[in-house]
């Protein structure tokens, strides 16, 4: 068991390493460089000193080794070029919790509402309630979150001035972006929950539980719910990595100082340290969540056994 996880850990590490390498060379291969716009009209000598300051005067492979060295020896992601004096580490440390907060609140709305609606639809299968819930689910999946965000923003900040339009600092600032983010989740979770619930309801052990004379309440919450939630875990954990990136567009609409601002701007400005720093951050999160998922599987479902090849 321990050996298995060690192996997985090493694989994960190499995955991230390969991602770093590919991203590094890929971003240097695309035309345009981060200083072009900034120093384009300056005398040659000034331009050169600028390129030298950021180490961009060296060949790409040398830049790569310097970067890898700084990363693994000191955990240093480097300094942003567009925002001089700000380290990528500090930008991620500041922005990630903010993006995560929107993501988690949105996910919470999506999961809680999605599960509830899914269960209702399963119980009222074939009735108008079922059709209604499935219609809402379809609706929420098909509308892009930024469209919903724009509608929310117009109605709840301009027409009715309930929430602030933009900004960050209070709970009120998080409500609309979280709702916009959560909307899509409602549909996804409701559909998923409905089908799982129906699946579990038809299982023999549910019939057996009913036969033992358990109350309907106990059957629902102790038997069906527990078994129906297990598969849900498998779709929620990988989403945890995406709570950081799923909010990017919303961050612009609501001017939230999260990671998205920097990521989008960094790509078009060719801010190399920012691009690669964030890529590492997000790929590491994703790989980690996959590791966690493997682990959780074993814990929650005794049927899953790890077989040695």
């Amino acid at each position, binding site marked *: 068991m321990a050996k298995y996880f060690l192996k997985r850990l090493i694989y994960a590490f190499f995955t991230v390493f390969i991602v770093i390498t590919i991203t590094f060379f890929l971003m240097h291969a695309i*035309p345009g460089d981060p200083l072009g716009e900034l120093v384009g*009209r300056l005398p*040659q000598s000034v331009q050169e000193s600028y390129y030298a300051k950021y180490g961009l005067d060296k060949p790409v492979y040398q830049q790569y080794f310097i970067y890898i060295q700084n990363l693994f020896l000191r955990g240093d992601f480097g300094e942003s070029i*567009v925002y001089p004096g700000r380290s990528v580490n500090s930008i991620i440390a500041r922005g990630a919790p903010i993006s995560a907060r929107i993501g988690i609140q949105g996910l919470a709305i999506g999961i*809680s509402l999605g599960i509830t609606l899914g269960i209702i639809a399963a119980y009222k299968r074939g009735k108008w309630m079922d059709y209604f819930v499935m219609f809402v689910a379809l609706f929420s999946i098909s509308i892009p979150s930024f469209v919903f965000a724009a509608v929310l923003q117009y109605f709840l900040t301009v027409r009715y001035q309930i929430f602030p339009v933009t900004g960050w600092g209070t709970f009120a600032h998080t409500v609309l972006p979280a709702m916009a983010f959560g909307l899509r989740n409602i549909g996804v979770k409701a559909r998923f929950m409905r089908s799982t619930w129906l699946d579990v309801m038809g299982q023999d052990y549910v019939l057996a539980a009913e036969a033992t004379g358990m109350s309907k309440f106990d059957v629902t919450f102790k038997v069906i719910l527990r078994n129906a939630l297990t598969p849900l875990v498998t779709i929620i954990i990988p989403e945890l990595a995406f709570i950081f990136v799923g909010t990017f567009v919303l961050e612009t609409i609501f001017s939230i100082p999260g990671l998205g601002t920097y990521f989008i701007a960094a790509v078009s400005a060719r801010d190399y340290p920012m691009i690669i720093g964030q890529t590492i951050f997000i790929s590491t999160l994703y790989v980690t969540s996959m590791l966690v998922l493997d682990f959780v599987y074993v814990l929650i479902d005794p049927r899953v056994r790890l077989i040695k090849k």
Partner: protein
Amino acid sequence: MKKRGISWLMILMLVLSSMVIGLAGCNQQQTPAPAPPQEDGNGNEEGSGDSGSDTDPVDSGEVPDEVQFFNYPFMADPRNIDGAMTNFMLDLTIIGNVHQTMTELIFVDEVLTMVPGAAESWEISEDGLVYTFNLRDMNWEDGQALTAHDYALTLFRALDPNSGSVKAGDLFNIENALEYFQGNADKEDVGIRVPDDKTLEITLKQVTPYFINLTYAGLFTPTRQDMVDQYGEQFGIIGDSILASGPFKVKEWVNDVHLILEKNENYWDADSVLLETITFKMIRDVQAIMSELMNGTIDRTSVTIQEWRDRLITTGNFSYGDYVLAGTYFLIFNTDYEVNGVKPLSNVKVRQAISAAIDREEATFMLRGDMAIPATGFIPSTVGLDNHNFREVTNYNPIEAIQARVPDPKALLEEGLAELGISINDFTIEFLAGGTTAQHRSEAEFFQEVLQRELGLKLEITQVETAVRTQNSRAGDFGITYSLWYAGQNDPGIYFNNWLTNLETHSYKTGYDNQQFDEYVLAANSTMDEEIRRHNFNRAEWLLAEEDCIVAPIYHPISSMMTAKYMRGFVNQNFAPTAFKTVYTVGRE
């Protein structure tokens, strides 16, 4: 898992119910009576900026509000509040409010005029080489005396080769500055001297007419050594490191959220400052800026999109002024552009035909609506020449001239192509669009259509990201491109620099090579004599936009300043960082 799901559900229900309550308790925003749109300042070629409706005179008998604050949107976080380092407009706006520049540039009787700032007075020596600034008594926000050494420090920091400042190049005309930057001269040899605490003396190595224009910008703001020592790399990057010398000081800077300034009681002219707080809110979405303006959570913004301008005007809650900006949109022809073995744009008649074929009125209307005026020259109508308006004193319009000269563009084009020995069907010209937005696309398509219609000339549009475009235009990798230039200084010279022959790098590589042009520009740039400068700049513009026709000016953009009706006291500050020290409110609800 079950419990958690249920508690989240409760929170959600709470949120939803509070929303419903909120909805019930909130009145619908009143639909304001539509006000007739004012035709205001569109044809304002004087560039007097805040025209009429925007600014009321201070002595109108109105009583300023008890509580004075002002909220202004920024579309991005400032980067570096350090006059020695930054070129970035948002940084300069903060600098203009927290620092006292050496001089100030404001409109006095509709003419941009330099007035005293930190310098009570200044003298320029007979030979035009030595500038002496006599400083007033003033203090830093912490009460320490401000001296000429603090101003000199900013200049030396910009010239420090280790700082990598993008501003260093502006100072290379100072005696030994370039040598110091390259490590070949000592600090003592540089022509920046402080004879006493109240005097700053700058010695230039050659006459530089535009040099005085630097004195109202970021480079001529003070820096204190102990702050630089204390904060090092973080100097100018975090709020605590910014020590104010101007009307406001930094209260709080939360990255990407807001930067709040409050009144600096130790400012030398603090008595005339009414505002207590200025909040710069970072709002990255244009639609959100409009929403906040409607809601009254910001008080002023510039609008460059016609639809919003018209919508805001109809609310009747805003006063507005249209400015002609100190910029020009223009086509650039690459004479070296080669297609199928020929260089169609190397022939001047081809270039002139293209420029003459474009109706500037049509282009302005189609691409900008009311948010631009047809170009009257390559140098924008707002740029001055030694305290006069450049366009007025030269009394020359290259666009009218070229259209009068070329009554039949198509015939001239045929003539030019015949000289090259090619036919119009032999080639298409690559048109490099200004960027990737929809606006850039419409611009490119407009020129494609017009040149096809008027001349039968075929363009092929290339649209790439800004970073790539910069590279392409520097490498001369385009046939025709469309560009916008703003001048950072109130001087025509800066517009001509790109077309000088012996540059290390051209922002736009066009292969233009005319010694006569270089001579005109250099002659104008190396004298203080207004008559000589006027003549030579006029000749240079004539060559560039008419005779050699390397550029075809199309229009000058307009910005509409939308300001809440209760705001007062804005002064138009073209070229200088925007300062809000004269601003106040009357009757804010």
